[in-house]
């Protein structure tokens, strides 16, 4: 089932490495690690495959 994310943004750590997604869903903000076993990560990949765009504000 496609999730209804309000937004998905790339998160960069202090070393400017992309290491997580920041999702906003039902007004709640969470950090999703780049772990293929994480079901939120899986949902983001499906959400992207449906043509949605991840916000990338750069390092």
């Amino acid at each position: 089932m496609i999730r209804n994310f309000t937004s998905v943004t790339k998160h960069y750590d202090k070393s400017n490495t992309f290491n997580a997604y920041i999702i906003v869903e039902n007004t709640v903000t969470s950090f999703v690690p780049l772990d293929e076993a994480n079901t939120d990560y899986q949902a983001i990949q499906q959400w992207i495959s449906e043509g949605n765009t991840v916000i990338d504000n750069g390092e």
Partner: protein
Amino acid sequence: MAIDKITTAAITDGTITSSDLASGAVPNQSAFKNIIINGDMSIAQRGTSVSSITGSGYNTVDRFRTNMGTAGTWTQSQSTDVPTGQGFATSLKMDCTTANGSLSAGSFLIIDQRVEGQNLQYLKKGTSSAESTTMSFWVKSAKTGTYVAVLQDMDNSRSISKSYTISSANTWEKKTVTFPGDTTGAFGNDNAASLKVQFWLVAGTTYSSGTLQTSWGTTTNANYAVGQVNLADSTSNEWYVTGVQLEAGTSASDFEFLPVDINKKRCERYFFKNAGNSHIGYAPSIGDNYRHETYYYPQEMRASPTITVTWDDQGSGTGTPGMQYIATQTADIYTNMGNTTNIVAFSTVQGDAEL
């Protein structure tokens, strides 16, 4: 052998062996025999009641997921309505608050639990020695009739369905269904979801127009829940369940009660939420504007969890939150305070590695 024939002498002389026992005479009594986690519905970290449910997700009782589409509106709660004299203190309750008496073809409402494949290897699925499994549970509903329980093999797209009947309205009844072993399709030996254990409550024709698939076979949507009553057809409808146990073998043994600390630890492999204001992440400056806190989860998690943090900076600065890393045992949570003096307090930290 009749029970009154078992004497001390008969036991001490060593003449009773396992071959003397009929199959199923001694049910599986091993520790952690229950494949289901939190089957007594005692752990509810997310909360004890959620209303206005129209879609899928985890709501109240740990490990039990609601899957729903076009099936009315529901309130789910951790209830204290339980079968008398069975030792249970809590149940999972589904209460219909907006009915749907004219289901769409694709309507569905399912309560399920998903199980990691590495916890199922002893069932020997996909081999000639595949084990049967038996599910027992207590259930109560305002609506009598036929309900369907399903095992779904997520690794091999196979499933098996068994129906059960709720005979008396608003009365606790114990149900037992046995599923034969499946000699086709092994479960993956990993931390992914291999098995869904499903309680169907609503099924549109997409899921009910065929023939109930009572033997293991390739999943066919139309064969999932044939005969399932529409529990969404009235706001008078409620459904309770507790004492859910799935175990190897062809008979149901007594429910395996676990100490609350063990039960909660098992749940925390998939989800944790600390008590509000219980964790203060004081992190002194190390010469820059960042404050770090290595947060140790209460339990190693199934996978790196999704982290949700609520925090307050204890000063005039406005922190910018971030994660230096998120692993299966710890996360490095930081915030940029914009100065070297203010401290930060994390009021709640939540991790979600559910299946």
